[in-house]
């Protein structure tokens, strides 16, 4: 399949969710056929993720009192005529606003990003991930850790540490992980007998701090967890039971 002719602005608009449905669908199809196109789309998605993710946590921080006071003082000091304003459109009214259309494309962005990562860096070693039907699934050490590691009890010197384990809204198990080999924190969910990697963020890992890294999640990863989680994360007993049950979906 030859290279598809999409210009950069079109691909940026794709990453921004600004294309009409037909063009969007065409690009979604073509990225699977053209690795160069996939690489370009990935770059735009990854940049958007990185920029949005950098500022994402600010909306969750408490607002300093001085700003609240500024609004109240100004309101009191203003002899304001009543003015007409319309209500916020619903897209922006949801609070706290998701900084980008997370669910629409994060999973794809993650798989593309990791796919490129894999092609460039991991496959020569045998690989911790593999592609299956355009999705990325865990293999090797990563798969073993996801299958059997208890967050409370990682093997000494393990190259992968597990953070949270939880059930998503369909009842499937998901686990966050940190992999030293991939310098990556990610989220994998149990789908069709595999651990499908649904979100990744690159992380810088110092020596020996993997356990701590597994406990603190990059904002983008936290958002991916929040978008999926149903109820509370599993406690140590729940996690052990899920390992024994070989991650079969909860009834």
């Amino acid at each position: 399949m030859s290279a598809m002719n999409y210009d950069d602005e079109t691909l940026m608009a794709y990453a921004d969710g600004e294309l009409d449905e037909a063009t969007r669908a065409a690009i979604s199809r073509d990225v699977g056929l053209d690795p160069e196109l996939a690489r370009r789309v990935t770059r735009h998605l990854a940049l958007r993720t990185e920029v949005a993710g950098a500022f994402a946590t600010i909306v969750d921080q408490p607002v300093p009192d001085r700003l609240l006071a500024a609004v109240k003082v100004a309101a009191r000091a203003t002899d304001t005529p009543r003015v007409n304003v319309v209500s916020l459109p619903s897209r922006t009214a949801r609070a706290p606003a998701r900084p980008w259309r997370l669910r629409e494309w994060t999973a794809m962005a993650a798989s593309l990003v990791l796919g490129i990562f894999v092609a460039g860096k991991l496959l020569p070693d045998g690989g911790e991930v593999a592609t299956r039907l355009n999705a990325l699934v865990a293999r090797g050490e990563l798969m073993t850790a996801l299958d059997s590691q208890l967050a409370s009890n990682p093997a000494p010197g393990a190259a992968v540490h597990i953070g949270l384990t939880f059930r998503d809204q369909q009842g499937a198990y998901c686990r966050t992980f940190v992999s030293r080999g991939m310098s990556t924190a990610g989220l994998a969910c149990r789908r069709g007998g595999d651990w499908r990697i649904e979100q990744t963020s690159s992380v810088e890992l110092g020596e020996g701090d993997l356990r701590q890294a597994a406990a603190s999640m990059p904002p983008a990863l936290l958002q991916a967890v929040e978008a999926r989680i149903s109820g509370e994360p599993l406690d140590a007993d729940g996690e052990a039971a899920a390992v024994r049950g070989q991650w079969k979906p909860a009834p």
Partner: protein
Amino acid sequence: MTHGPEEISERIIELLPRLRRFARSLSRNQHDADDLVQSAVERAWRNLAQLKPGAPLHSWMFGIMKNAWLDNLRAAKRRGEVALPEDSGDHPAVNPTDMNANLWSVSEAMDKLPEEQRLAVALVLVEGMSYKEASEVLEIPMGTLTSRLARGRTALAASLGGE
């Protein structure tokens, strides 16, 4: 819908988290960002009469913040101020422990963008606004917005080491 000052102040308070994020994406640190939010809030109240009937409050507030930011930059240039280098560790509000590394590097890269590109990137990539909404806040045609956005992205990718 008619709203009195009470209700408008409630609505502005609801917007404060997003205004702080927008301001942070335009500023070097959270302290400067909060100063910007504060001056935008004060300016909004002074100019409340300019809020057109039927206009969405949030677009108007983001527009005011944009103007306040640009005015601050111009005033600083007139005074011959040079922006502080990144070492401003003596600033009481800059606490490296509450800045993730990603925020630090993206913020630094944003800081290098020309003003108009930075605004486009901040509204679309950080705030998640649609092109239409962002072009309304910036009072520019949509084509101008998308070309600024494209140039801003290319520059960001280069300084973040993507390409």
